[in-house]
């Protein structure tokens, strides 16, 4: 017994020094339950262990580990694993709308654009409200989206290749693995009061 204590102490030392090694003992198991899905404990790794930052750089250790920041924010299943829109709405974050002015407010536009999709996928609803909280009109119009019916060809392929919605979604905004966040209007739902658009079909 007396001799086993020091060995246990040694193991405890290792556990203290490198806790993530003990969180993932199944790394070598070919029949692990979730082989490719990273466990929650491996998400948002600190800069010294994230594979991009150089751990031998002194400054890397000074950078804030994302997890410390994200713990206080609402979580989602993808991307940063943070629901940024909810965080904004709940005022957990207060990002500025101007460099020097902490009180500047964006002009938010409440307008939804609906696109029906073929097949059984629910229709896409694009909400200006959530986007104009963050972005200027000129960020998207007209360079990425022409504000005119029939003027924008959007397909999942285009989005995945980084065009249209994919300029941001799948790069810095939530990725397209969360289908329902965009495909949010079920087909059998009564359509909301739609403003019939001027017939600008081409």
């Amino acid at each position, binding site marked *: 017994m007396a001799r086993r204590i*020091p060995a246990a*102490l*040694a193991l405890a*030392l290792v556990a203290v*020094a490198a806790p993530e090694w003990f969180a993932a003992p199944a790394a070598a198991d070919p029949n692990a339950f979730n082989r490719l899905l990273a466990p929650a404990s491996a998400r948002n790794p*600190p800069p*010294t262990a994230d594979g991009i930052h150089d751990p031998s750089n*002194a*400054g890397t*250790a*000074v950078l804030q580990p994302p997890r410390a920041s994200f713990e206080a924010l609402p979580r989602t299943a993808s991307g940063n694993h943070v629901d940024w829109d909810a965080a904004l709405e709940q005022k957990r974050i207060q990002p500025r709308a101007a460099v020097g002015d902490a009180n500047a407010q964006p*002009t938010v*536009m*409440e*307008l*939804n*654009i*609906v*696109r*029906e*999709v*073929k*097949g*059984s*996928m629910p*229709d896409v609803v694009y909400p200006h409200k959530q986007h104009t909280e963050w972005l*200027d*009109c*000129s960020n998207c*119009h*007209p*360079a990425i989206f*022409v*504000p*005119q*019916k*029939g003027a*924008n*060809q*959007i*397909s*999942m*392929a*285009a989005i*995945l*290749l*980084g*065009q249209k919605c994919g300029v941001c979604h799948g790069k810095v905004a939530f990725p397209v693995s969360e*289908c329902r966040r965009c495909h949010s209007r079920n087909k059998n739902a009564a*359509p*909301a*009061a*739609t*403003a*019939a*658009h*001027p017939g*600008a*079909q*081409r």
Partner: protein
Amino acid sequence: MRRVTSMLAAALLAGYAGAPAAQADRPSATGAPSLELVRQKQTFTSRLLADSPALARIAASGNAEAARLLERARTRHEGALAALAAGDHAGANALLNEAIAAIGRARQLVPDAAERSSEEHNRYRQLLSGIDSLRASYREHLAHRGRAPQDDASWIALTELVDRAKALAAEQRIGEANRLLLRAESAQLDAFGPLLAGKTIDYTPHFGEPADEFRFELERNRSYGELVPLALAELRPAADARKLVDRYVASGRELERTALRRAADKDYSGALAAIRAATVYLQRALLAAGLAVPREQEN
């Protein structure tokens, strides 16, 4: 046992030393700066001090403060070189920081007019194209409500703002023009409010004429065609995959030609069938290139 205890102590110390630095509001070095860091900073500083366009600007401006700051940067840099030679990394680092701050302020006191001007011009173009597209949209919404733009107070006010901005731009007063355009954008959004707030617009295409639907499908086909080189460039498929991609694209093109022929003969239902099949081939080409698209018929 004593040896083991001291090993344990050493291990514990090593564990603490390896612990991540506490989060700080302001970044602080975790100890003395490394030689690598100081060398890189010194290289950067000497580059700054050798940037002749900036030096020429500062000299030509006659700005005494800028000249003084430049001189301070030079002396600090020389001091840093001496400190480096003497092995004093922390001292060299501090002197270099002062040099960088000084030369930065000097440069900002005498900014590069040409660079500023081209930035402002870019911003002007971006803002103008943004406001133009919004105004076009606003005009359509007004027309749909049976209102002529010249009867709408917001439209008149906005037009006046944009015209004033254009006039300022013509006089090369781009900064002021940009500020006006920002005000115009804000005013335009406010004008949209009563028209659109809380509404939903349906962008789904509904076709009255088969010819219209054919045009739509043709455009859709073209946009998929644009995606193929993009996919090839980003996904870089292997040679045999590329051959497959080329075959599918060729089949798609053949069907597109068929579709166009049929459309010319006014056989729109035949043309639609052909162009849709052409698009399916392009989708297969994208799949062969390695793009894993959700397998649902897309809009």
